């Protein structure tokens, strides 16, 4: 089977299709939505807490800003920051796991104990302390969310590395005197990537949820930024008067996590079946 067909097999399942379609829809909304925003998302455009009407399709929020415009702008932060955080987590976690798994010395013990310490701290508590200590910039937010993922990624990478590093082709590379970096990059990394990335989608979902929670709690992005989670937090007092200012961003966050999760599940399933099929063929 060609590589492309293998990569796209996950689209074949029903839930996979729904997931991919949903993810693409959200991506389109986030990328192109701002061009269609009728108002400046930060500008006060009318009377606060209006229900949907002719002038404001989704009504106005507690400060009188257009909810539709804020929705169209507000996905960018959560999608981009969670993607960034997840990618960063994979880069750092994979590097740590590779070095720890391959070294089998004090380096391994030191790195993994450090990971254990991180793992022992509850994520939200960690982010709370981080926000208090290092400020509430986007950089801190991304770094913080990434740090939450790093230990578990490092652990998976480490055990996959240990398994692969005793294979003949790795030993052959060692025996011909390849530098450690070359062994890790050429021989080990390509062979553990499947295992490591299998739960990438689930981690992305987790990043979205953590980011939403942090923003909702006011520990992340600050007003007047347009952000879905922040919108829920800002408008929840007026929920009886103008439910759409809370419901619309909440529904979109739910839609985003469900779509990403369905895609991730389908991808993981197709990875699973492809390895299984190979085994049966042997």
């Amino acid at each position, binding site marked *: 089977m060609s590589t492309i067909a293998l990569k796209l097999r996950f689209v074949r399942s029903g839930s996979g299709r729904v997931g991919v379609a949903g993810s693409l829809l959200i991506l389109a909304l986030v990328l192109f939505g701002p061009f269609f925003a009728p108002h400046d998302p930060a500008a006060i455009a009318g009377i606060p807490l209006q229900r949907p009407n002719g002038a404001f399709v989704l009504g106005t929020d507690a400060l009188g800003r257009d909810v539709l415009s804020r929705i169209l702008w507000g996905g960018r932060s959560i999608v981009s920051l969670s993607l960034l955080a997840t990618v960063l987590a994979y880069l750092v976690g994979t590097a740590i796991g590779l070095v720890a798994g391959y070294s089998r010395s004090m380096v391994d013990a030191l790195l993994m104990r450090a990971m254990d310490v991180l793992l022992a701290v509850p994520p939200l508590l960690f982010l709370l302390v981080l926000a208090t200590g290092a400020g509430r910039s986007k950089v801190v937010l991304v770094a913080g969310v990434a740090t939450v993922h790093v230990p578990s990624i490092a652990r998976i990478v480490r055990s996959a590395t240990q398994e692969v590093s005793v294979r*003949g082709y790795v030993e*052959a590379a*060692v*025996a*011909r005197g390849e530098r450690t970096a070359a062994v890790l990059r050429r021989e080990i990394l*390509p062979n553990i990537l499947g295992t490591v990335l299998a739960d990438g989608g689930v981690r992305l979902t987790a990043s979205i949820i953590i980011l939403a929670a942090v923003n909702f709690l006011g520990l992340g992005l600050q007003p007047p930024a347009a952000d879905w989670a922040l919108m829920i937090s800002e408008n929840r007092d007026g929920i009886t008067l103008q439910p759409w200012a809370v419901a619309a961003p909440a529904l979109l966050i739910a839609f985003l996590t469900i779509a990403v999760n369905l895609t991730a599940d389908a991808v993981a399933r197709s990875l699973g079946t492809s390895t299984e099929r*190979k085994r049966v063929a042997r």
Partner: protein
Amino acid sequence: MSETALSVQDLRIELTSGEAVVEGVSFSLAPGRVLGLVGESGSGKTTTALALLGYTHPGVRVVGGTISVAGQAVTGRRESAVRTLRGRLVSYVPQDPASALNPSVRVGDQIGHMVRTHAPERDVDTEVTRALELVQLPTSTTFRRRFPHQLSGGQQQRVAIAAALVCRPSVAVLDEPTTGLDVVTQSRLLAELEPLRRELKLAIVYVSHDLAVVASIADEIAVMYAGRVVEQGPAATVLREPRHPYTRGLLTSVPDPHEPRHLRSIPGVAVGVGERPAGCAFAPRCPQRTAICETEAPPLEPVGDTRHVACFEWSRTPSLSVEARVPGALIGRETAPLLEVERLRAEHKGRDGTVLAACDVSFAVAGGECVALVGESGSGKTTIARCVAGLHPPADGRILLDGAPLAPLAGRRALAARRRIQIVFQNPNDSLNPRHRVAEAIARPARVLRGLSRRQADDEVRTLLERVRLPGRLAQRFPGELSGGERQRVAIARALAAAPDLIVCDEITSALDVSVQAAVLEVLEALRAQLGLALLFITHDLGVVASVADRVLVLDRGFVCEEGAVGPLLEAPDHEYTQRLVAAAPTLRA
């Protein structure tokens, strides 16, 4: 005896896609007889064996023919009906005892479970005791309360056999039951099967790819190729005068410790399911094919009184001849030692302390010479190989190349030293990086160790593939698309790419079928003759030693217990341990 324990008529098994896995297989077996079902991987022998129990792997089904055991039909029944036959009438001993036994159930309970399920009227305790006695295991409560991981491989396999026999079936299907065992345990187990079938009147179907093993136990042999039986008859005549060219090829592939011989493999690769040609499936590999072979499949027809052969040209099959090999013939005279190992000591440091792997091991390999290290698992032979290749630091002693001491680890060795010693590993499944194409795998050492340019390395790849007798088109394939034998030949080509003086071969054929092993060993033999390569050959198989090596060191638990030229040592071993190994080695000689 007129009654039949097992009868198979015109069995046909297909994939759900409709491609035949097994076609037109028929045989019958009287009580107390042993049928050896022989063939390479992919010949359909295990599928046939499982069908005897009314079982097929998912995606495979029996579509035609009948199977009956002790007069009861196995085919054409519902799963629940077949299930009552299993264990009581027919039972199965799978290949790998370590995975056949449930690791979390005590061995006594595993055997007892068979009684409870299939013969609830009998007393569990007495039946289990009897079964353990049959396979010569202790019957004590302590033994029964052990878990499978607390037993040796041989004991595990005996437990699996005891569980298969506890309900006194008429037929036992043994699927390569000795493949994972060392030779001494293997020969003991084979000897123990003998009284079982005599006393219990047990009919045994013994599945194996190794004719030498089958020769020691079978009364009749059915040779399978590409899902069909190609030759069938009494064991002695099939082994002495094969009539099918495939059977003959299998026989010339079998090494024999008692008479060193040149192995002659069957050219080409076994065809897989779904790629079988229209005519005779063996035709593409057959030296005596004619036009009709390519269009029409030969039926299995009687030849002589007792034999059946599926070949149009069977009368042209040459008689079996053995090309005797003279060990040492390839070494030049008075060559200085290339590699010297002096008083090597190697250890494995684990959590529970240090385990001695090799102690006081000294030997030398001359240029162009093949030295074999022989021993059972745990004898330290692989660790010694890894020390030579610079993958395991010795605890003590020296390794010298051309008189100059080598650093313990490869990373510290000079480029020339790394280039001149290459290693090929045991497991063909992990000796090549699955993400690198064959060309990439072979080109890398040529570029890193010989400094060749990309273009020069590409040319080298083509030459090397030819050297190991692989078609050039394989260069663009990934290892997953190759067979085990092809992968191992690519691994040899990768070692050759460094233009080495010595190749360390660590059990390179132990995971391969006998016929594929012969092809790999033939390649090595030719390489030695062409390039004057020296080999350090690690193996547990004395037959292989007789076919490739000039000198041999026998290792027992890390110590060298005997050393000498291959011919005299195998003929008249001095050390008691070597004598046991030689006596246990399977042979085709009656």
